[in-house]
């Protein structure tokens, strides 16, 4: 490494953002988001009711994906008219509130992949967000959580699942480190998801055949693993074709099980099969294949590849574009934000806003509901420790991100009960026991590192047998009921019964408590500009506002209120002093009377005493007056200075903000101002007293040294506001300043009656 250029540059280079990878575009390998020079030009040729040419490629040269798209994904009756439209004109319709969603769905159902990408690329990032807000299929946004742990502990999985649902997640996805654990992980999620007041669909991401089996047995209630790629070679490496995936989708539907497909920018380049095409062009092909397969929806947004598009120019915009195209294909959208995308919190949060603000069907297709170290999906871009941040973002923006603040008590209660339910089911089904210590640990641990060890070999054997014997969701329901968990048993059964209805096979279905299904059928996105579409109900607005850490401002500073008689006594109106050796200390209207301590909780009596001591140390005479006409620090000090025989006064507000004033200065000018009370301690107040005296004596004065804490305003602004409000309430406009007898301040000193410092 070269010699350090500057300390500042060196420190910057070590910031989190500089641990991310950034590269320039390389179109030949598909390392480019939009507009590869090798992308085809949009075009279509239809004759005899057949698509003869797709984006410049004649039918004879079609690969499997072209054939699939041509056969199932383009509405040939509309295609020629739709393709004749100007791309900018179509782009404008996307953000024109006068053009309804359904009209655009029909239009985009008749375009080719290259044209779709061209249109979307005419929108800037904000326009894409506007389009996403209008085009997502379901009106109500929601959220999915990932629930895994390194030790694959079933009690912890159930506890994490229960907490996730309590926090508002409406879908839970788990996976496995060791695939033989799959049935137990699925079981733990099934139980945990139905433990609290909410409900959620659950899935276990494993190999296709096993995934189908778990769903058929009722151990999972939806599936999401049907991956699709934009080139034939990548598809083959995934060991599927569009037809095999489509058939699998029908298989799930035939058993009443919800499915969404998976795709995302960057996967083809990562697999070495991008064929020099841009990531977005390939993703458009994926999404058309998914629509053609008859899937109700997709999770995309680069998913586990996210760091690859983010290494390129326009990566985050490109990922938003692929989310948008999914909605243009009229698909349910679970919009990524799952795998770790950046080291930088700033960058992660900024990226999230592109899905969070417009809203999608599932903003995360896997929010890590546990700490990152337990995430088996690739880290988790946001995790358990970011939940409070997320709740604040919802509150700040008044955006429904699908989650709700919950109390610590509610979290612990639901975690313990879920772990107990798993313990009971394992006992009832004669599976390896879950100990009381595990239940207790599952309720309270940070991560699986703190969980007691289980007999891994025993668990895996039991899990294998469980699957071989064809144990099902019904066995779980029976075990729950027999162990006295009737409420959970009924909820699990109600979810299984939904299969009879197929209601959750419709686009963008989510299950609410009841269970009640809402989807794009009975909750269609009807956004048509301001005043339409989804809006927060007053209950939901209140729920989002009610952070557990939000205080009642009426209660702030109560401990600073006067509890008993004061240490100051008014002796009459204060007149102008004549003694050139007197320094006036002018108190704010509540100081030492209605209020008894500063912002930091330093008792007013001690603050006053410190200033008196300082003045006396310089051989001058302190005189204390109360100002009623104003609560402003500058004016308090200025009024004091008019009364001071020396012309010098200290003004102090109840919160502790202090000024040294002089008679002939303008009210808002000063000799010294200490605007940030939190940076003052008793020795500062004593020095303030001394300095005031020195000004009066005409001696040279070194300003009082104070600490600089740039977070003081951030930390204390609310308390400052509330305390100042209380002081201002004591203002009596036309009341003249009063002389104060402060002799009791000394009588009380050392008598044990001195007020203790209060908590800040």
């Amino acid at each position, binding site marked *: 490494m070269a010699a350090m250029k500057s300390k500042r540059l060196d420190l910057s280079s070590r910031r989190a953002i500089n641990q991310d990878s950034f590269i320039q575009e390389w179109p030949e390998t598909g390392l480019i988001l939009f507009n590869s020079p090798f992308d085809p030009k949009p075009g279509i040729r239809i004759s005899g009711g057949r698509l003869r040419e797709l984006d410049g490629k004649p039918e004879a040269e079609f690969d499997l994906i072209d054939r699939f798209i041509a056969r199932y994904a383009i509405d040939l009756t509309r295609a020629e008219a739709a393709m004749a439209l100007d791309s900018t004109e179509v782009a404008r319709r996307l953000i024109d509130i006068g053009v309804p969603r359904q009209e655009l769905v029909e239009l985009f159902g008749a375009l080719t992949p290259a044209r779709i990408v061209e249109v979307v690329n005419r929108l800037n990032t904000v326009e894409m967000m506007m389009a996403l807000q209008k085009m997502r299929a379901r009106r109500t946004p929601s959220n999915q959580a990932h629930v895994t742990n390194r030790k694959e502990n079933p009690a912890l999985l159930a506890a994490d699942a229960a907490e996730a649902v309590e926090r508002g997640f409406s879908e839970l996805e788990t996976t496995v480190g060791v695939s033989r654990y799959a049935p137990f992980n699925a079981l733990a999620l099934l139980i945990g998801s139905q433990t609290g007041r909410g409900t959620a669909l659950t899935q276990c991401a494993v190999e296709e055949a096993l995934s189908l089996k778990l769903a058929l047995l009722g151990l999972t209630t939806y599936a999401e693993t049907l991956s699709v790629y934009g080139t034939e070679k990548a598809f083959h490496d995934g060991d599927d074709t569009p037809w095999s995936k489509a*058939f699998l989708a029908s298989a799930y539907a035939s058993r009443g099980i919800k499915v969404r497909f998976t795709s995302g920018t960057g996967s083809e380049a990562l697999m070495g099969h991008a064929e020099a095409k841009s990531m977005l062009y390939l993703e458009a092909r994926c999404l058309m294949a998914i629509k053609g397969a008859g899937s109700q929806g997709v999770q995309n947004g680069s998913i586990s590849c996210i760091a690859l598009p983010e290494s390129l120019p326009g990566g985050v915009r490109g990922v938003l574009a692929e989310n948008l195209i999914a909605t243009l294909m009229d698909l349910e959208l679970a919009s990524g934000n799952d795998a770790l995308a950046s080291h930088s919190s700033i960058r992660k949060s900024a990226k999230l806003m592109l899905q969070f603000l417009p809203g999608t069907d599932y903003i995360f297709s896997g929010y890590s509901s546990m700490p990152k170290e337990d995430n088996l999906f690739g880290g988790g871009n946001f995790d358990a420790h970011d939940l409070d941040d997320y709740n604040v973002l919802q509150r700040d923006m008044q955006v429904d991100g699908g989650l709700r603040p919950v109390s610590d008590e509610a979290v612990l209660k639901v975690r313990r009960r879920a772990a107990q339910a798993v313990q009971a089911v394992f006992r009832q089904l004669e599976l390896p026991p879950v100990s009381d210590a595990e239940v207790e640990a599952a309720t309270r641990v940070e991560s699986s590192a703190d969980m007691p060890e289980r007999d891994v070999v025993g668990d895996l054997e039991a899990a294998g047998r469980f699957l071989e014997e064809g144990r099902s969701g019904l066995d779980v329901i029976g075990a729950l009921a027999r162990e006295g968990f009737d409420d959970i048993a009924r909820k699990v059964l109600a979810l299984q019964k939904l299969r009879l209805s197929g209601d959750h096979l419709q686009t963008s279905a989510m299950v609410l408590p009841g269970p009640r299904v809402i989807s794009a059928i009975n909750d269609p996105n009807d956004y048509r500009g301001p005043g339409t579409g989804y809006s927060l109900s007053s209950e939901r607005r209140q729920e989002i506002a009610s952070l557990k850490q939000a205080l009642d401002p009426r209660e702030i500073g109560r401990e600073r209120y006067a509890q008993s008689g004061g240490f100051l006594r008014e002796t009459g109106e204060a007149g102008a002093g004549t003694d050139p050796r007197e320094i006036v200390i002018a108190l704010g209207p509540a100081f030492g009377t209605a209020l008894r301590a500063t912002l930091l909780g330093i008792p007013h009596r001690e603050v006053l005493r410190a200033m008196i001591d300082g003045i006396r140390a310089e051989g001058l005479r302190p005189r204390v007056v109360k100002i009623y006409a104003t609560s402003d620090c500058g004016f308090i000090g200025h009024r004091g200075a008019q009364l001071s025989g020396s012309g010098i006064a200290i003004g102090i507000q109840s919160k502790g903000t202090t000024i040294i004033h002089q008679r002939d200065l303008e009210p808002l000018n000063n000799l010294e101002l200490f605007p940030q009370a939190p940076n003052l301690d008793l020795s500062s107040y004593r020095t303030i007293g001394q300095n005031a005296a020195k000004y009066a004596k005409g001696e040279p004065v070194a300003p009082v040294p104070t600490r600089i804490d740039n977070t003081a305003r951030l930390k204390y602004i609310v308390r400052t506001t509330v305390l100042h409000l209380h002081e201002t309430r004591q203002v009596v406009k036309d009341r003249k300043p009063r002389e104060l007898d402060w002799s009791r301040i000394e009588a009380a000193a050392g008598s044990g009656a001195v007020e203790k410092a209060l908590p800040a």
Partner: protein
Amino acid sequence: MSNITDNYPLSEKSPDRLTTPTGASWNDIDLQSVLDGTLSISDLRIAPETLELQARIAESAGRSQLADNLRRAAELVGVPESKILEVYQALRPGRSTPAELESLADELESQYRAGRCARFLREAAQAYAS
């Protein structure tokens, strides 16, 4: 004029129309039937008629591909899981010759009256061959 989507969601609006392929009705399925052991997981299945209803609902919302998928699914209700997995495996890359796919299509058509699925397999066979 009544709209097909007025019945949606079926589980809420018309559960009395819901039966399983084994003949159980929505109201038969409760915690007691699970505890009595009179219910098996294979009873908790969607009926072809219900899938057709959902297909029509999807179609009325302009989702013809989803409707096609649900209609293929309706045909697969009576097809055993082992056969479904066999067809899925056969459709994966490099697993079967066009003739093998053709014969599976014939079987779906003749044995399970799964004409749409059979046609879908033949389209796949044709695409794989070209």
